[in-house]
């Protein structure tokens, strides 16, 4: 470890948050603030015939598509722009925004909302992947309901299948997951010195700026976005704040007063995007010795009513579908499928958790069918430096899986337990091995983001860091300061880093994709070096540094070939469980993890990410059941959508290995998503051991286990 940078410091934001002094969106006060509620569709697929709005009291407004100013557009500009700001004649999911009711008294706004009548003509909706592929009710998107349909080939899979001694088939599925950031979605739009200005709970202030400008027909620099203290996000505040801010912008433009839109928890669970449910089908070709010679993988994700960033989620899902295994001949098809469900979108891991869960379970199922030791079977296919990925790129870094495996075996006493616990005896130990590419997929950093970082050396000897990346709980306020401070030889508190404001900071890109430390952190380090060289005592100087790709990366976006990621984080998780033979409830008895995140910028911050990611992943694996029935989520409160409490899981034993990456700050790679990825497969694997039957889906609920065990 680089002892200096990795040594934990006290987080700079801890005190203000603990004492309640930190101001989140809903804590901000503005004179004359108006409150907005969304008039939402209660139909999954319908034509809107009429909207009857009763006469409004003075000071209350109904805002809809007709209020978008001339020159503006009724589109939320994200990666695509198929999602309308307000429904225009038709609705595609339950919860879609038709209008906003705005006024000074929240209760009155709610009463007005309830008095509005929408007359629909229902159309034939599609909810499942099968219905969507059969084009039930006619296509919802394009002529095939496919937002994306990707094909990858590595080696010669057809020849491998021709030569196969046996072919084993498998189907693995994963459910929805709701983010449950503790602070619900919220934005406030206002006019400051005539400029439309937003305060937002957000991961990506420049995304909001772009979307609001597009909607109102302004240039981006005519819109200002200030990030408020953000109470968790996990991907849920990557693009959805654009869907929140655009209708509010229309309201502010029309009314000229500050307007707050903060969702209550029921709205937030019911109508904001979720992790994509997935179904992955494997056909695996084996030779006469039981060695894998080829895989044919079909990945389908339920993308819901609008595309948002589903195509990129799908890319990461299929790129993760061989995980840490170097399989010689592989054919992959991936489809992101349009349905009339609430749109699916970014959630920590961004497709990787689905892909990694599927391949981990499949590998263990193969070992089981072949009657060989599962872990030894997996080890035979571990990739290494120079190994070929499913996009025919190369692993460019040292792969420390053998060392990591040794560490976790010692910590968890794995070998003894694996020898002692007989399968089916209601106690099991499970293991998952996985990796996660840091940063945007493919050439996104270079082609789309082109991140820019600025630093200012001040006359008083302190420095300011100007970046668009946000603190959302992951510790960036502390870790970015540490990187700059260490380069400059300053105490951490002498580096300023205020919450981003698009009028003040350059666009260093969004806060997502495990890119903040791995990609932007490197720009911070390089920018700080430039500042150090240029800065003389008593002077003020400003320097900037722009992203350039690390040397040796090759990527073709048209056919998705080459190095999909510049570097990877690596992880191994072990989970031990007991299954109650009467209730089929599973209790977790131990959790161990080892991660390679390059160099930890702050060991405690990384450990905090590891703990939080693993528990969120264990929730995904077990408790967090979210079912969409006819386009409506059956669970819609925190009482029926259950996330882990402090009682549900034991403490976690975590270790790090040092593996510095030359193009990360002080050798750091991404960590925030990696730490989520492995918990679900390790948990499901432990349950398989305990019941001696294959588990092929999450969440593993007692109801599901009863089906598996009792047949």
């Amino acid at each position, binding site marked *: 470890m680089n002892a200096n940078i990795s040594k934990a410091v006290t987080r700079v934001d*801890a005190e203000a948050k603990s004492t*309640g002094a930190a101001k*989140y969106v809903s804590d901000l006060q503005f004179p004359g603030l108006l409150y907005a509620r969304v008039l939402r569709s209660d139909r999954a697929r319908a034509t809107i015939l009429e909207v009857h709005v009763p006469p409004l009291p003075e000071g209350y407004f109904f805002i809809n598509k007709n209020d978008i100013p001339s020159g503006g557009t009724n589109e939320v500009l994200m990666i695509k722009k198929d999602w309308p700001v307000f429904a225009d004649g038709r609705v595609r999911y339950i919860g879609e925004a038709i209008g906003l009711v705005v006024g000074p008294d929240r209760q009155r706004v709610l009463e007005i909302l309830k008095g509005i009548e929408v007359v629909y003509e229902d159309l034939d909706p599609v909810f499942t992947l099968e219905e969507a592929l059969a084009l039930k009710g006619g296509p919802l998107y394009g002529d095939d309901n496919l937002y994306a349909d990707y094909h990858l080939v590595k080696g010669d899979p057809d020849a491998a299948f021709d030569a196969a001694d046996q072919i084993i088939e498998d189907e693995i599925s994963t459910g929805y997951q709701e983010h449950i950031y503790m602070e619900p979605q919220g934005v406030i739009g206002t006019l400051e010195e005539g400029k439309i200005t937003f305060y937002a709970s957000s991961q990506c202030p420049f995304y909001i700026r772009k979307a609001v400008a597009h909607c109102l027909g302004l240039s981006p620099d005519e819109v200002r976005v200030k990030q408020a203290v*953000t109470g968790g996000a996990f991907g849920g505040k990557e693009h959805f704040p654009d869907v929140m801010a655009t209708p509010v912008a229309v309201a502010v433009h029309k009314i000229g007063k500050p307007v707050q839109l903060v969702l209550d928890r*029921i709205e937030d669970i019911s109508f904001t995007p979720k992790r994509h449910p997935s179904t992955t089908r494997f056909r695996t070709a084996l030779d006469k010795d039981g060695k894998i010679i080829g895989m044919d993988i079909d990945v389908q994700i339920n993308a819901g009513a609008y595309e948002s960033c589903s195509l990129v989620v799908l890319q990461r899902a299929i790129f993760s579908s061989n995980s840490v295994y170097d399989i010689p001949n592989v054919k992959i098809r991936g489809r992101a499928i349009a349905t009339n469900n609430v749109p699916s979108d970014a959630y920590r891991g961004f497709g990787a958790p689905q892909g990694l869960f599927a391949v981990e379970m499949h590998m263990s199922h193969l070992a089981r069918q072949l009657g060989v030791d599962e872990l030894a079977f997996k080890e035979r296919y571990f990739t290494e430096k120079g190994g070929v990925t499913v996009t025919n790129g190369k692993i460019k870094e040292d792969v420390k899986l053998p060392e990591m495996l040794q560490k976790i075996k010692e910590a968890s006493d794995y070998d003894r337990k694996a020898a002692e616990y007989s399968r089916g005896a209601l106690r099991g130990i499970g293991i998952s091995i996985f990796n996660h590419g840091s940063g945007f997929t493919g050439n996104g950093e270079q082609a789309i983001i082109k991140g820019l970082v600025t630093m200012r050396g001040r006359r008083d000897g302190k420095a300011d860091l100007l970046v668009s990346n946000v603190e959302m709980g992951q510790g960036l306020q502390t870790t970015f300061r540490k990187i700059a401070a260490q380069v400059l030889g300053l105490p951490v508190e002498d580096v300023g880093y205020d919450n981003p404001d698009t009028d003040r900071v350059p666009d260093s890109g969004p806060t997502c994709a495990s890119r903040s430390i791995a990609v932007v952190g490197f720009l911070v380090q390089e920018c700080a070096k430039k500042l150090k060289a240029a800065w003389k005592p008593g002077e003020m100087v400003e320097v900037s540094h722009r992203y350039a790709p690390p040397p040796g990366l090759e990527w073709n976006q048209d056919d998705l070939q080459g190095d999909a990621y510049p570097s990877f984080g690596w992880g191994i998780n072990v989970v031990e469980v007991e299954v109650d033979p009467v209730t089929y409830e599973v209790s977790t008895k131990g959790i161990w993890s080892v991660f390679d995140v390059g160099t930890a910028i702050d060991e405690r911050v990384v450990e905090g990410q590891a703990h939080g990611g693993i528990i969120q992943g264990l929730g995904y694996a077990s408790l967090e059941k979210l079912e969409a029935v006819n386009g409506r989520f059956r669970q819609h*409160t925190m009482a029926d959508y259950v996330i882990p*409490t402090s009682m549900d899981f034991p403490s976690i034993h975590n270790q790090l290995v040092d593996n510095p990456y030359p193009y990360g700050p002080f050798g750091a790679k991404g960590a925030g998503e990696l730490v989520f990825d492995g918990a679900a497969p390790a948990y499901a694997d432990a349950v398989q051991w305990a019941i001696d039957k294959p588990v092929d889906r999450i969440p593993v609920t007692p109801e599901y286990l009863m089906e598996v065990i009792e047949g």
Partner: protein
Amino acid sequence: MSLVSFTLNGKPVSVEADPLLRLLDLLREDLGLTGVKEGCGEGECGACSVLKDGKIVNSCLIPVATVAGCEIVTPEGLRDTDRGKCIVEAFAESGAVQCGFCTPGMMMATESLLRKNPDPSEAEVREGLSGNLCRCTGYDMIVRGVLLAANKGRGLW
């Protein structure tokens, strides 16, 4: 509307309010105490925790009328006390704070627990925090923070 009088963070207050108004709204909107957070509005998450006569309650479930004559403590009241300062420091030293939205409620839960049990075991801490949800930390560092506060603040509770 009716006049409701109670003690808030050690000081007497009297407010004209709808007796059915949620205590949460009175505290946040009428009295500007935004350290009390609304995470769910249905008593599940604990972000709006306050102490009512020394017991932890969810202020989103409590009508204002029911606090007449009671003693209410919010994070703004706790933070200036020796115990509050001890908890804030212990949380910071333990890495217990990430996004922070649950943290003021966790502070209140810690105060409530240590009042009843100044020397809790890890299991007792986990039970004491079980009404307060956190999505960031996985709870381990919050548990460590509570144990550290109990240790550093020996004699305060």
